[in-house]
C-alpha cells in the first residue's frame, strides 16, 4: 500500500462494541481483516503501538512508549493532552504472552484498584476477532473508575449533564 492510500479514511470500519459484562468486568470487541499473527504483532512492538494507541481524534499524543512484551516485562505509556498540564502515565506488567492468541497485563497506575486486561486474538477465515476484557478486583473498583471518569476523562459526564439540563429546560418551557 502506498502512503497516499494509507492516509485516506477507510470507508468501511468494522464495528467496536463495549459492554459491562458483569459487576467487575468490561468487555470490548472488534474484528480485524487480517490474520491473528499480524494483529498480535501490532500489540507487541513499541514502534507499532506508538502509531495507534494515542488516536489523533482524541487529541492525545505519546510522550514516550516503552513496552517489553514478555512474561514479567513492563510497559510504560506516557501521554500528553492539551487539557492537562501534567503528562499522564499508564504502566504495568505483562503476566501472559502467548503469540498469537493471548496477551495479559496489569494496570498499576491506579494502585490496588487497577484492572487486569486480557486480550484474545481469535482467527477465523483470515479475520481476527479481538476480545479485550478489563477485570477489576471488585465491583467498587470498577464503579470508582467509572465515577472518576478515568480512562476517558470526565468530558462525557459534563456532556450528559448539559443534555439533562437542556432537556429539563426545554420541557420546562413548553
Amino acid at each position, binding site marked *: *500500500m502506498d502512503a497516499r492510500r*494509507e492516509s485516506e479514511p*477507510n470507508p468501511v*470500519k*468494522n*464495528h*467496536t*462494541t*463495549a*459492554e*459491562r459484562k458483569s459487576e467487575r468486568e*468490561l468487555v*470490548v470487541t*472488534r474484528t*480485524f*481483516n*487480517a490474520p491473528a499473527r*499480524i*494483529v498480535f*504483532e*501490532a500489540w507487541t512492538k513499541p514502534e*507499532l503501538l506508538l*502509531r*495507534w*494507541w494515542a*488516536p*489523533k*481524534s*482524541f487529541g492525545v499524543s505519546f510522550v514516550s512508549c516503552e513496552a517489553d512484551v514478555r512474561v514479567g516485562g513492563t510497559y510504560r505509556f506516557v501521554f500528553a493532552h492539551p487539557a492537562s498540564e501534567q503528562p499522564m502515565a499508564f504502566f504495568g506488567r505483562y503476566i501472559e504472552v502467548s503469540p498469537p492468541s493471548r496477551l495479559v497485563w496489569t494496570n498499576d497506575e491506579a494502585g490496588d484498584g487497577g484492572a487486569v486486561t486480557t486480550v484474545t486474538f481469535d482467527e477465523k477465515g483470515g479475520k481476527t476477532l*479481538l476480545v*479485550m476484557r478489563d477485570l477489576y478486583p471488585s465491583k467498587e473498583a470498577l464503579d470508582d473508575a*467509572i*465515577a472518576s*471518569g478515568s*480512562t*476517558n*476523562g470526565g*468530558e*462525557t*459526564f459534563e*456532556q*450528559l449533564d448539559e443534555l*439533562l439540563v437542556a*432537556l*429539563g429546560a426545554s*420541557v*420546562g418551557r413548553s
Partner: protein
Amino acid sequence: MVQFPHARLDASFSALSDATRRGVLEQLGHADASITDLAEKFHMTLTGMKKHVGVLEQAGLVATEKVGRVRTCKLGPRRLEQETAWIEGYRQLWASRFDELDNVVDELKQKEKIDGRKKRE
C-alpha cells in the same frame, strides 16, 4: 452501539414528563429539601408530593434519606445514565484506536505479501 438500559431511560423520560416533577428537580438543584417543604412550595398534599418523589427516585433522578421524622430529598446519582455515557466514551476511545490500528495492520499485511514474494523469487 453500547446497549442502553431502555427501562431506565424510559423511567427517566416519564419522570421528566410532568411539570411538577421537573419543578422539583429544579428546586433540588438549588438545595436539598424535605417532602413537606416541596409539598408546600408546589401547593400539594404530602401524599401527592410523596408520589412524585417516588417516581423521580425510581428513575434515579432523586435520592431520599430519612433522618428522624423528616425525609430529605436531593438530586440522585443517576448512576446508570453516567455509566452508559462512560461506557460509550470508552467504546469511542477504543474504536478510534482500532481505526488507526487498521492502518498499521494493513501495512503489515502488505509487507508480509511483498516479503513472501521476494522469498519465492
